[in-house]
């Protein structure tokens, strides 16, 4: 099995003495959609900064596409892993949308026509064509978030990492974001999302990693989010679908549906079955 990310016993202590990671071990498959869940202060953001080579391991190893993260490889790793920060105002800093999207490719010394091509493609992917010359600070929050994603997409990373992508987005912004992520994943890219949103993780992810206090509590399919012991231990909550179906054991189910569409189909099937009887 090919892995996009392999982390072995990773530990990290911040300058202020906080031990953010205490021996994280996990593997993420190439082309997968992985959600990293955990309460505030679990170490999610610190872990993400290791994936991009911003933080280098103080203990343990991090391998990205088989390449070990160290001072020598950090630039290559930054080109392979695109990191979208939680707050677009931390990331988007150029005077025009175009300049910001082109910032990454220019830093990696790509030729001018390639920079132009990538910036255009990235803006098309996030549906921001026509806003190239706008000042990012004058755009809406959702649009700034899309500029931040485009700025990372322009690097054509094999792995896209997003920190709390849903934060402060309105409902239509969230729907748009999921469409963008799915579009990127279809092209074979690995997507890793750190989030508090259990509903999103349950519906969208192939693989779920739960971390708490700087350690991995569990890793597996989205069905681990229906595990009562794990949910209590991780200070998370059940996804809405799980909450609903746990209250209706009389319906009789093997797997809890992951989305509203799946649930509707399942209920319709059960109702038809009842009518026939």
């Amino acid at each position: 099995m090919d892995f996009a990310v392999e982390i072995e016993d990773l530990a990290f202590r911040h300058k202020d003495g906080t031990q953010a990671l205490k021996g994280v071990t996990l593997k993420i498959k190439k082309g997968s959609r992985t959600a990293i869940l955990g309460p505030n202060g679990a170490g999610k953001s610190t872990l993400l900064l290791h994936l991009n080579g911003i933080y280098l391991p103080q203990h343990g190893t991090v391998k990205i596409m088989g390449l070990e993260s160290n001072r020598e490889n950090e630039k290559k790793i930054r080109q392979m892993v695109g990191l979208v920060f939680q707050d677009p105002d931390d990331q988007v800093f150029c005077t025009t949308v175009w300049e910001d999207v082109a910032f990454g490719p220019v830093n990696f010394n790509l030729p001018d026509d390639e920079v132009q091509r990538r910036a255009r493609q990235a803006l098309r992917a996030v549906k921001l064509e026509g806003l190239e010359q706008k000042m990012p600070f004058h755009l809406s929050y959702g649009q700034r978030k899309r500029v931040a994603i485009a700025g990372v997409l322009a690097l054509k990373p094999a792995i896209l990492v997003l920190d709390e992508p849903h934060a402060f987005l309105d409902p239509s912004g969230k729907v748009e974001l999921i469409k963008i992520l799915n579009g990127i994943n279809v092209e074979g890219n690995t997507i890793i999302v750190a989030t508090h949103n259990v509903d999103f993780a349950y519906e969208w992810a192939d693989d779920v990693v739960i971390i708490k206090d700087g350690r991995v509590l569990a890793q597996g399919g989205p069905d681990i989010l229906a595990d009562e012991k794990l949910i209590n231990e991780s200070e998370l909550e059940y996804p809405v679908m799980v909450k609903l179906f746990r209250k209706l054991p009389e319906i009789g189910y093997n797997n809890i549906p992951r989305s509203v569409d799946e649930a509707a189909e399942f209920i319709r099937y059960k109702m038809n079955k009842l009518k026939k009887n």
Partner: protein
Amino acid sequence: MRNLFAGTEGSIKLFSAIIYVAIVATLRAWPYLIWCLILYFLLLLILRFPGYKNIRQLIPPLLFIAAMSAGIMLIDLKAGKSIDRGLVIFLRALNAIYVLNTVISSMTLQELLSSMRSLRLPEIMVNLVGFTLRYSDILSREMNRMMTARKARGYVPHKSMWHSSTMKVLGQTVGVLFIRSYERSERVYQAMLARGYGGSVIPVGGRKRLQKMDYIVGLSIILIPLTLKMAELGVLSWILP
């Protein structure tokens, strides 16, 4: 109608403005300084640039300069001298501020930064200007959010500068803003590193090709103080019959 001044290439305008300021700083007679201002204003009108629009922006720096000049005038008056020295200082400053203000306000931020770069100004200075202008907006929004949150909890600032509670709250707000700015700067730096930042912001795209009109505008800006300087030195009387 096309605004010819705004359409002129940025680095030419900036370079001409710097030369203008440098020559104006050597003019010694106040009538020449007033003529300089009038001719520059007329040039802007010919180039279809509304040079009167940003006058209000000049008030804060001019108040500072006016206070200094007034001080010099008072000292000179007391010593029985004329007020020319203070007047000249004020007019030199007015010329410099007005010319730079019109040039900068005729450019986008991107244009200003690339013009500074093409004039080979130190990279650190260009980046400092860029980041300051870019993030002043975020900081003012952060400040406004804090002020709104305070108002929502019933806080009403006292109008007097000497009200201790108001001063304490203001001090705390500025302190928090400073800490938040520092934390944000760390996150911004990390985000820049994540996209391959290696110490300098590389400009995107090539420079605009210079046209004949760019040179004409640039030369016109420089010729105004240069002609007046020559007149002040009496050079014109040698040339003109």
